[in-house]
């Protein structure tokens, strides 16, 4: 202990680490009525880090070549010791990460945390959401199974509905008229290099913005309404008399992360193929389209919307409009009230929207 103290003393003397600890950890005060939903961010950080780690491990044995990809993934699953664990960790982990991201977004919506002055936080979060969808879509192709191949065919094809540039855009996305080896090349680069870097950069921006605005006060169970932010000057939202981040909230974060890992590992060990339809086990065959090709669960609503409208352009435009509306929500919904029960119109739209998304998803699943 004394040796440790000496080392810390030595470092502290030079760069003042104890001051950082005091300012950023023990003296970083959070609202007293903070709740568990505020640890979704920490869960997401861990989830992303785990994807990066397991992804790098997969890269050791995975071969990004149309002739060898499926075989290399089979080899990882069947021959490399614990390869199945790493692979399933990555594949199941991606689904769990999307789920955590959705919950994070829903809680931010419900607590109105996207409102002024946190519009930029919402915007960066929304871009992160799109990037995670992108990384999942590109990763889905990599095993080069029937599922990979045809899900990518359908997903890229939906862009063809865009007037004028649509058909060329599809070809550009695929690197050819049809999905083929060139598609694997670009999706691989996107999946393992471009999008992970973009995600890391946006996480940085997201956290920086949080640091500058300060943590929001939850709208629930607060004794008095907080002072609204000034309209004409910057103010950091601090919480005098709040609970320290370290050790108090850090422990809550840890508990939430443990809970997340427990759910994640329960799926991994007890129902590993939950997210794997049987076409995932058949190598890609460009000449045989399987009967019921479906996207992953979080794209089912999009898939069903596209199917519902005879004109693809209408379906696509509707989705674009919905996404744009969501992205710009903080600039549209500008009331100061954040408590969901005091925002009946918002709450009604929230529930209706959620039910619509789930309903379309279930419909898409069984259609």
């Amino acid at each position, binding site marked *: 202990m004394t040796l440790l103290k000496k080392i810390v003393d030595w470092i502290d003397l030079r760069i003042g680490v104890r001051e950082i600890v005091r300012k950023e950890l023990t003296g970083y005060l959070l609202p007293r009525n903070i709740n568990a939903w505020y640890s979704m961010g920490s869960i997401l950080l861990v989830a992303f880090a785990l994807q990066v780690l397991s992804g790098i491990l997969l890269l050791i044995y995975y071969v990004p070549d149309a002739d060898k990809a499926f075989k290399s993934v089979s080899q990882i699953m069947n021959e490399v010791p*614990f390869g199945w*664990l790493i692979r399933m960790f990555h594949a199941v982990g991606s689904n769990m990460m999307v789920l955590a991201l959705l919950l994070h977004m829903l809680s931010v919506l419900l607590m109105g945390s996207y409102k002024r002055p946190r519009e930029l936080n919402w915007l960066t979060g929304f871009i992160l959401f799109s990037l995670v969808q992108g990384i999942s879509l590109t990763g889905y192709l990599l095993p080069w199974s029937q599922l990979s191949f045809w899900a990518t065919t359908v997903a890229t094809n939906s862009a063809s509905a865009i007037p004028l540039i649509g058909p060329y855009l599809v070809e550009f996305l695929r690197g050819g008229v049809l999905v083929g080896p060139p598609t694997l090349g670009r999706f691989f680069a996107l999946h393992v290099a471009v999008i992970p870097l973009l995600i890391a950069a946006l996480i940085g921006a997201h956290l920086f913005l949080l640091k500058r605005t300060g943590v929001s006060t939850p709208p629930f169970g607060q004794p008095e309404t907080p002072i609204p932010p000034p309209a004409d000057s910057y103010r950091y939202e601090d919480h005098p008399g709040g609970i320290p981040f370290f050790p108090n909230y850090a422990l809550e974060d840890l508990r939430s992360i443990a809970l997340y890992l427990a759910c994640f590992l329960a799926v991994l060990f007890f129902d590993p193929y939950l997210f794997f339809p049987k076409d995932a086990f058949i190598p890609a065959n460009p000449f045989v389209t399987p009967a019921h090709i479906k996207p992953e669960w979080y794209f089912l609503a999009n898939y069903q919307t596209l199917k519902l409208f005879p004109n693809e352009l209408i379906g696509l435009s509707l989705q674009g409009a919905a996404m744009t509306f969501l992205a710009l929500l903080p600039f549209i919904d500008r009331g100061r009230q954040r408590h969901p029960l005091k925002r009946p119109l918002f709450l009604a739209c929230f529930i209706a929207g959620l039910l619509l998304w789930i309903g379309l998803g279930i419909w898409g699943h069984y259609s």
Partner: protein
Amino acid sequence: MDHKRRTFLGIGLAGLGALAAAAVGWPLFRYLAPRSSREAAGKVVVPEGDIPEGGARFFEYAGSSAVLVRKRDGGLVALSAVCTHLGCIVQWQKESQDFLCPCHAGRFSTDGVVIAGPPPKPLAKIPFSVSGGNITVG
């Protein structure tokens, strides 16, 4: 009393941490550990006719490089082709009937004995048997 409780919980926590680290570390080590090579230490069969008098034939054996040489007098030798200096692969010099290591000019005789240069030890001998026109190494 409270102090004892703390120590106990601390030890318990450290134990759980160690268990978790092992549960993560072991699969990770196994995943990364080299496979193939030694476990696949099968025998290598080379047809006798493949090696002319005064000639050599290099092949993979037990995950490493080995060489079969037929001496001018007709005798066969099987050696590791890995130089005992810093591990380069030796080359067969047909004219001089010896091995030259291109890295630091180490020289070995047909039997693997060091003739010149820095190698500290002779090339390792590999057991083999000949029957029915086939050489079985290993």
